[in-house]
């Protein structure tokens, strides 16, 4: 069955609350621990300004993590299309190296378990805990509208301005 929905991350909406990390670790591991989360929020500071960026499995169409697993343990899930790891991991870390976005991490030793997002079987917990909708899980055929909305809003909001004010600025998209 073709994949119906996809996880979309809007970095500009992330407030750094880290609830996604907590929801994930609580759901999968039964404890509150950012290091056991499959989604990671990274931060950068520039003075008082802060940028926080959630990094999570983008569930590639032809997942490299699935392709490289020597044990055949990483399999493409039928419903969600994402690579899902079975219990045969030997800790070779090829999946971790193959991931283009760095979304696979590892549980601390002595575990050899990769921490790999499985979209919670189709009902991702992180999305439920994200108040700003920096994380959304939307139908694949509709996802582009989220991005287009930004530009549409921009044009609609500028309609009231006089021609002199427009010029080149009218075509800039403020992020």
């Amino acid at each position, binding site marked *: 069955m073709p994949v119906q929905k996809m996880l979309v991350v809007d970095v*500009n909406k992330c*407030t750094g*609350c880290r609830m996604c990390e907590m*929801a994930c670790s*609580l759901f999968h591991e039964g404890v509150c621990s950012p290091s056991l989360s499959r989604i990671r929020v990274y931060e*950068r500071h520039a003075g008082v*300004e802060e940028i926080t960026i959630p990094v999570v499995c983008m569930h590639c169409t032809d997942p490299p993590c699935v392709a490289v697993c020597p044990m055949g343990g990483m399999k493409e899930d039928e419903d969600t299309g994402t690579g899902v790891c079975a219990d045969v991991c030997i800790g070779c870390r090829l999946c971790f190296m193959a991931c283009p976005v760095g979304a696979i991490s590892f549980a601390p030793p002595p575990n050899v378990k990769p921490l790999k997002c499985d979209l919670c079987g189709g009902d991702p917990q992180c999305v439920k805990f994200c*108040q700003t909708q920096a994380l959304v899980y939307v139908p694949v055929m509709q996802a582009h509208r989220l991005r287009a909305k930004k530009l549409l809003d921009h044009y609609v909001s500028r309609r009231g301005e006089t021609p002199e004010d427009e010029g080149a600025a009218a075509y800039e998209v403020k992020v």
Partner: protein
Amino acid sequence: MSLYGYGNILEIDLSTGKLVKRDISPQFARDYIGGMGFSCKILYDEVGPDVDPLGPQNILIFANGPLTGTASPCSGRTEVTTKSPLTGNVGTGNTGGLWGARLKWAGFDLVIVRNQAEEPVYLWIDDDVVEIRDASHLWGKDTVSASDMLIHELDPSLPSKISVLTIGPAGENLVRYACPVNDYHHVAGRCGAGAVMGAMKLKAIAVRGTGTVPIARPEESRQVAREARERLLAADRASKMPGAPPEGRVLSLERGALPGKNHQTGILPQWLETRGRDIAQRYVVGKEHTCYACPISCFNLVEVKEGKYAGVKAIRGTAPGLVFQFGAKCAIDNLPAIWKCKQICHQFGLDYASAAGSIAFAMELFQRGLITESDTDGLELNWGNEDAIIEMLHKIAFRDGFGDVLAEGSQRAAQRIGRGAERYVMATKGMEMMQSNDPRSGSRFWVFGELTNPRGGDNVKTTHGFADRYNPNWWVDEFDMFEDVKKAVYDMPPEEVTHTWEGKPLMCRWFEDMYSAVNALGMCFFPVGFRLALGPTYLARLFSACTGWDTTPQDIVRFGEKVFNLLKAYTARQGLTREDDVWPDRFYEEPLPEGPGKGAVLSRDTIDRLLDEYYELRGWDKRRGVPTREKLIELGLNDIADDLQRLGKLDA
């Protein structure tokens, strides 16, 4: 960690360099819960009434709650407790950001620092590896530079997961209201913990935590966290719907209750037109960033792009609190200058309410000719003179000239200056008033809590919330509050609640207990007091699921009461009584001169009767305004009851 939810204890002796890690005993956790409960108990036991706050016998405590760093909404809070160099009383403030959560994930809920180092040091907590390291290269740096340097040096490969709590020059120079700043812009304010760190030569504490918080009932915990979060979001939406009360700057002006010019007047010209939220909105450039686990983002970034203050950025730019300080008490008439003052306070690690209060005090003296330019190093401390105020902030942070006088706080400064200056000190229990409401005409609930706050200076531990501001979209039926309290407090037309003293002692007691419970649990009080979404029912469920200890809403209120009494016990031992639950004379003797609050003045009789009612509700001794022995024993504070009795602080 042996207990569900709780981290362990880290004890540091800076004079010997000894580090000790201990488990938290289940009994201690049960008895004092966490956060302010832990820290006030430890402070009471170790730091007696004669200890010099800047001397080697004072201690510094950082206390998470069991919920800190878990899935509970708004669970990123840490209490910072010490004996205050400003007031000589218990000094306890609360901070957010990520520092506390990371401390929890490193395995600790309590960090106790004792004695003083000889040379500047910082503490590096890297999960279970803890080191005291040389900080001489950081000493003298402002909080932003120190944080940048430390993060880069400890983890040069970005992105890092390190939170830094640090003092700036103000703390290093022992300014009595200096404060530590964590995660660049979160502050445990008001009490001078930064000066204590400066005296200890403890520049900073850096934390990286990658561990786990074991949860007793994970599935339930997740479920309750979600419900609590959704309730909070619903209340948050309701606060923005039509009909909801306007923001603080509007309300205070409507009542003629601005703390204008050191509390001389309740109105200021062009207040909203130059300093209102609509004006602040124009400068917003950044998305809001939150403390750990908070879904409601209480602040946002502003930037001034042109003019004199071009380049100034301030976090929490649209928040009103700061504007009442520099914009009303000191009467600066534009937001960019006000944000510049905030930027300086954050960089130097200065509590902005006490800084603004000390400067406003000096400005009133200047206005009245009690001090002149010869006292103020040539600075013309005229109302609204932003250049002079900005320079004064620098002088305070470095104890330069007249700055050395104001660095002592307005009460001590008045003693040094003499000439009748004491009359113009606007402080409660020794701490500058952080009122955004003048007590004469301000909201009754809001102002009453300033009198009863054991640590003084504001209503932050008591009535800092909107429970009296009628919002038809979210009102009493929605509140998580006991029915009998609702009936007693809200039995009147809703619009009247904010204007009348009726029911306020009970309302005050309720929120004091709630806030104490929330501080002990490690959560933020915003969902409880500002959005009225969470109360004992939700707190009980969150606590039960986390720790596995079945707790009822009544239990929550009871341990909130216990923690509040613990806080009060310290002040009672310090010698504060009913006579200290008082405002400066001005508010009883000088009617407001103008505006909607014109003629308003407080009646000592009225306030006395309210205090009587309050002490009775608390089961306290009305004569001294302190807990009775029976009350302390009822709450399980037997050894404190014995100690206070022995010292003659309780009636027989």
